[in-house]
């Protein structure tokens, strides 16, 4: 087995690392303070090519594949998980439009998304939750020449940064009763709600959408009517979940680095605390989680690059890595003792960010349902 990345993936990983250090890192303190996403960063993400990583070249992307995307999102997330989640959610809409959109939708949206005219998003979650897709309340009723949408979406990443979000709404009943739409901002009856204040991932934009008799043309429909469930499940399962796994992998890397740095520099009883077995055991646990998470994340992306069935592996990657990031960042925080609870120490940000990643893209419990079904069926 060759565990080395192919050359282009190595270059993507290194470039994403340099971008994160040079461009993203200086923005983090202000993102933490204000909770706002720095809008000029969108163009910078586009210029280096991170926005178009999984978009075909004919639409302005670089088409470098899913392993490259995982490595890039993890590197960015190591410095700022907030920027990492914004990037991975952008890839979700890019992939959904590329997989399911009409030729006209691809030609209209994908080049704009690669150029950084806006960050993409997929709006599924509603105030009643995000796991019960069939039970959603937003509707898209057939009307002359198109549809009329009513309802709301919440906890939508990039909500205020997206010019044309992908929305899932009910056009009928049951699993064939969902459809996907691209709604341009400015459409009558479409409005934005508040910007949410989260405990972690500060600086990632999270917001609400409201639809009140929002009339959209037939051309807004993505895929056929009734295929919204497929669009949502494939996009969440094969792009969103590995994306959150990659964000969590970045958090894990950061937590490990902080744990090692602190345990070597903090002295107790006249020597670094790294000499204490209690600290060594925690560091060993964190590194083991990190290496395991790398393997499960990279393998799942490798499967998708080869066009092989990967949904269960993607879910395992998300399930394992988000939990591992939370476990590791808690241990890293505990290694810091009282210092870990101080905002001056980055390790507390790892812990808060890891906590928010648990529910994004499907909770741990939903992940276990998906994996157990694959195991038992």
């Amino acid at each position: 087995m060759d565990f080395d990345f192919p050359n282009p993936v190595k270059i993507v990983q290194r470039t994403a690392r340099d971008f994160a250090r040079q461009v993203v890192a200086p923005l983090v303190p202000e993102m933490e303070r204000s909770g706002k996403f720095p809008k000029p960063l969108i163009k910078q993400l586009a210029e280096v090519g991170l926005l178009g990583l999984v978009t075909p070249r004919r639409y302005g992307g670089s088409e470098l594949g899913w392993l490259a995307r995982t490595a890039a999102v993890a590197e960015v997330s190591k410095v700022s998980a907030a920027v990492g989640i914004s990037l991975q959610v952008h890839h979700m809409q890019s992939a959904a439009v590329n997989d399911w959109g009409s030729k006209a939708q691809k030609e209209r949206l994908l080049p704009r998304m690669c150029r950084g005219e806006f960050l993409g998003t997929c709006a599924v979650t509603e105030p009643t939750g995000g796991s019960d897709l069939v039970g959603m309340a937003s509707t898209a009723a057939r009307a002359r020449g198109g549809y009329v949408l009513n309802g709301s979406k919440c906890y939508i990443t990039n909500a205020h940064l997206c010019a044309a979000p992908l929305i899932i709404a009910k056009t009928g009943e049951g699993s064939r009763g969902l459809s996907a739409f691209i709604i341009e901002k400015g459409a009558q009856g479409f409005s934005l709600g508040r910007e949410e204040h989260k405990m972690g991932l500060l600086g990632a934009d999270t917001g609400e959408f409201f639809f009140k008799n929002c009339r959209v043309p037939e051309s807004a429909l993505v895929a056929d009517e009734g295929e919204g469930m497929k669009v949502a499940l494939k996009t969440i399962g094969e792009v969103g979940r590995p994306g959150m796994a990659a964000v969590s992998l970045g958090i894990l890397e950061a937590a490990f680095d902080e744990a090692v740095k602190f345990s070597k520099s903090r002295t107790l009883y006249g020597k670094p605390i790294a000499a204490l077995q209690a600290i060594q055991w925690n560091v060993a646990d964190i590194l083991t989680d990190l290496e395991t998470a790398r393997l499960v994340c990279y393998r799942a992306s490798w499967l998708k690059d080869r066009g092989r069935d990967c949904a269960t592996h993607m879910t395992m990657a998300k399930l394992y890595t988000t939990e591992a990031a939370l476990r590791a960042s808690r241990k890293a925080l505990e290694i810091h003792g009282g210092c870990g609870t101080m905002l001056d120490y980055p390790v507390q940000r790892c812990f808060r960010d890891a906590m928010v990643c648990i529910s994004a893209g499907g909770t741990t419990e939903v992940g276990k349902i998906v994996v157990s079904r694959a195991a038992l069926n």
Partner: protein
Amino acid sequence: MHIIVCVKPVPDPSRFDKLRLDPDTMLLRRDEVPSVINPLDRNALEAAAALKARHKGRVSALAMAAPGALEQLQEALALGCDRACLLTDPAFAGADTLATARVLAAAVRKLGRFDLILCGGYSADGSTGQVGPQLAELLGIPDLTFARSLEIKRKKLHAHCLREERQAVCETELPALVTLDQSANAPRLTPLASLRAAASKKISAWSARDLKLAPSGVGLAGSPTRMLNIFTPPVKRRGEMLQGSPDEAAAQLLERLRKDKVLS
């Protein structure tokens, strides 16, 4: 205009703390730290891309390295080079700066007509700064070192070059060789949009035989210098905390410095 850029893969400087020396061979254990394009060579690639944009023409990248250096040459292609050649042969191993310059000179001759060769001022691992000037000498062309700006006017090269604490304003005929200082420009990050096309380009691999070089002139056999030993000097310094108030500590420090004849 044909510009040739010499590119050296070096261990990632941000991970130098992980570098180890092989105690038997006295060589760096390069497999333990991933290689990157030598940072100052990125300045050279950036300068080449700027000159190509202004004057048209083409850029070729040359690297003398192990086969694994394809990655750095693919990156050079993504950074705007039109062609890349890997000079690789087990016979090149252990080359000092002169033997390296001989291989590069043979490759430059094989590439044919050129106007300008750009190199980084020095490599992050060897830090000799000798390969560029030696290559110019072997090719019989003028060289300017540590340029912090360069431009071509009426077929002449004008450059501002660092000289200790001064700057020299230089002019030379083409063809010429210039080594770049890090202040020459701000190298771009690798544009990922160009990477897939770059990765699909063919990279020529040239051996000693392809370059018509005798084994006695390359690698360790062709190197007039020999590495006899590399070691980390033992540090015998010992820290000592001076006690008392800041004034008392300052007085103690002054007394100690006078006693040790650091101050008179």
